[in-house]
């Protein structure tokens, strides 16, 4: 008996369709984005302000308070510069991905910082959101195109 030459690999495609349920808390924030509003909520237990806010404070486990609007600007808490190309990338590297602390909130939001040379981005840089046009507004963080420095001097 002669054995056939073994095959090395076999295709194993997997496809699964799901429903994403954003949840009550997250949905409040997402609906605000569709109106160009950054909505925060405060924990009545520890007074910390979340943006985006869950339905419950993850320190105190208490339901957070009603939503209120933040001014929108904030500062770069820390960041990195994505410097290499990879498949599916939206922007041409190098570009800055930053953790942004919105004024009035105790949490940090991860987003792009543009309209500034990457080497000029620093921790503490004051930034503001650049919103998409009316036709692109959505209940999604994509409603914020990116953040940019507030002062022209920073650019």
């Amino acid at each position, binding site marked *: 008996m002669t054995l056939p030459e073994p095959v090395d690999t076999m295709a194993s495609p997997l496809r699964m369709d799901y429903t994403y349920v954003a949840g009550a808390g997250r949905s409040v924030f997402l609906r605000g984005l569709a109106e160009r509003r950054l909505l925060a909520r405060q924990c009545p237990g520890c007074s910390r302000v979340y943006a985006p806010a869950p339905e419950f*404070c993850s320190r105190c486990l208490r339901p957070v308070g009603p939503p209120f609007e933040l001014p929108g600007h904030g500062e770069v808490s820390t960041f990195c510069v994505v410097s290499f190309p990879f498949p*599916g990338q939206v922007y041409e590297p190098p570009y800055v991905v930053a953790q942004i602390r919105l004024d009035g909130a105790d949490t940090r939001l991860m987003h792009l910082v543009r309209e500034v040379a990457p080497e000029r981005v620093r921790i503490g840089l004051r930034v503001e959101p650049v919103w998409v046009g009316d036709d692109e507004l959505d209940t*999604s963080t*994509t409603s914020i195109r990116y953040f940019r420095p507030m002062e022209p001097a920073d650019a």
Partner: protein
Amino acid sequence: MSGPLAVIGVGQSVQAKRREVTIGALVREAVDEALADAGLGFADIDAVVLSKTPDLFDGVMNPELYLADAMGAVGLPVTRVFTGGSVGGHAAIFGAHLVAAGLARRVLVVAYSKESEGNFTWALSRGLPFSSHLGAGAGGHFAPVIREYIRRSRAPEHIGWKVAVNHRHNAARNPYAHIRRADLTIDEVRQSPMLWDPIRYLESCPSSDGSCAIVVTGAELARRSPRPPAWIHGMAWRTETGHFAGRDEVNPRAGRDCAADAYRQAGITDPAREIDVAELYIPYSWYEPMWLENTGLAGEHDGWRLVDADRTAFGGDLPVNPSGGVLSGNPTGATGLLRFAEAALQVRGLAGEHQVPGARRAVGHAMGGASQFHALWVVGSEAPA
């Protein structure tokens, strides 16, 4: 507790893109080696704990089902633990708990990943509805934390390059490691492409296929084992939630609490002095100084000074990652267990060319998530007092 516990068998596969074996055969390599090391067969094992990172990475759901034969688990209790990247450490500790609880005499802890089967980075970075596709990737999470560490500690930038060189030189002595570069230089690291500034290509972990297995038992059976046991002196796990307001990801409290608990159990009051070698979960080079501080092996903001003074290099007084560490091989599901296993090999005196001479007490460490999950054990060449 039923008295001291020990590791009596360690096995691992070569870490690489293992495009010539099935998942089962890859797992079996480590299982066979661990059992041979312990002088045991499948009939001697009472329970199996399986460690692995997300099932979506390789598309096999509940892999403990398909792997029952490969792990020799038929007729045994099998538990599949999953806590993010620290999972291998959690699995080792849970295995030890089963022995301590009197529920098993010998536990086989198995870990693997075979991520070359699918596009693993893609699986991680795929956006969900309602969110932007930032294109940050895995390093895009850790790089800003590193930047924050550098700012706080005022560490010079060559520290990251130096760690990358040390670990790859160590890996050259480890036949199982994926990236083995005895010839790597600081210049080559410095000149390697910038990925996520401040992380360069050669300061990053690879993606590997690989497996690891250990056998844990109690004192009596450990003393009858053919080769020296690694005695467990202390072990702990801690978790903190991911996104509460004001969380410190540079020096997470869960990591500090975890190490402190393990040292307390081990009777260690001055870890830097009492630990001979540490195998830490370092996926990007800068995590060496960060985790040295977080695990209490260096003072706050001083971790980088140990690196700078060559103290954590192979010949230093506190060698870190003699195996080459995660920077030299990263089968994610096994990465944590490999750290725990390397610590055991060191105190057993069985680490071969990467043996740290005279290692009597070692730390094995694993972390996962956004530095939320921490596991650590202290093992020694002597049974705990």
